């Protein structure tokens, strides 16, 4: 399967070596801008918009929810408004739902039909989320997928897999790891991985103290 054609040092290939469609986007962009359909500024704005979105946004929401029960309630009741409180612009999401993990319940999110993802909050999805193997197995083998990410759950824990087939975008609120009562919010944010907000793993454990 053709993919980003970089050499082993991650250097860009010269454009004449790109695949058929990879080359075509440059022609398409050039024509669209020439015809005034979109502008160079539009493109630049979108690139910057994307760069500003990353799992760090989600980690901020989660860490605050862990330490501030009133915020957590607001986050679950109206996630977009809670995002705005934190200076995170989730307004371009149509509908945003936060799924709270507990000791008894874990959630996992997939889009089997394409690869819908809460991009305005978390940025671009990882390659694996978009892969056929994930899209095929998340719905009928979630525990197998979780094991690959290092999460093994007993049968008594309920696993709820959400297939986001419509305009709803889901974010998992991972369980707060044990023994983190004394950690600052900044330290808690470091435990919240992107993959824990997709639900294939729990948040990282607190580091063992010397």
């Amino acid at each position: 399967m053709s993919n980003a054609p970089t050499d082993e040092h991650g250097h860009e290939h010269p454009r004449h070596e790109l695949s058929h469609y990879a080359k075509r986007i440059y022609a398409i962009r050039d024509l669209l801008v020439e015809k005034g359909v979109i502008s160079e500024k539009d493109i630049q704005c979108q690139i910057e918009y994307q760069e500003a979105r990353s799992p760090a946004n989600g980690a901020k929401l989660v860490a605050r929810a862990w330490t501030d029960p009133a915020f957590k309630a607001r986050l679950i009741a109206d996630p977009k408004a809670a995002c705005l409180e934190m200076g995170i612009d989730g307004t371009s999401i149509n509908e945003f739902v936060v799924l709270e993990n507990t000791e008894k319940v874990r959630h996992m999110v997939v889009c089997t039909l394409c690869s819908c993802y809460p991009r305005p909050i978390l940025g671009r999805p990882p390659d694996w989320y978009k892969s056929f193997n994930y899209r095929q197995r998340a719905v009928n083998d979630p525990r197998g997928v979780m094991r690959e990410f290092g999460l093994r759950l007993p049968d008594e824990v309920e696993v709820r897999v959400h297939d986001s087939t419509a305009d709803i975008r889901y974010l998992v609120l991972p369980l707060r790891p044990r023994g983190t009562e004394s950690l600052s919010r900044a330290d808690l944010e470091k435990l919240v991985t992107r993959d824990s907000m997709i639900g294939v793993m729990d948040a990282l454990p607190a580091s063992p103290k010397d």
Partner: protein
Amino acid sequence: MSSGGGKFKPGDRVHVRFEDRPGHIRTPWYVRGKSGWIERVYGDFPNPESLAFGGDGLPKRTLYLVAFNQADVWGAAQAPKDKVLVDIYEHWLDPAA
């Protein structure tokens, strides 16, 4: 087809239609013909089946979060309480017995 209010409420048992329709369908194959229940009512949204072909998506369709026991979808479950939940539009759902 309703376009406001919606005919199902949380807890209602529903059956997903088994249809093989052409066009842009957002009801995944693996739940067609399966039964579950309404978890949430998300409200009314423009119909993607129409939007995909340049239509206006009207009338809006009520969107539901429908939950299924894994065993009911696949014949077996990895663990007894496990579930799969899918966002499904009302016109794909019938009341289940």
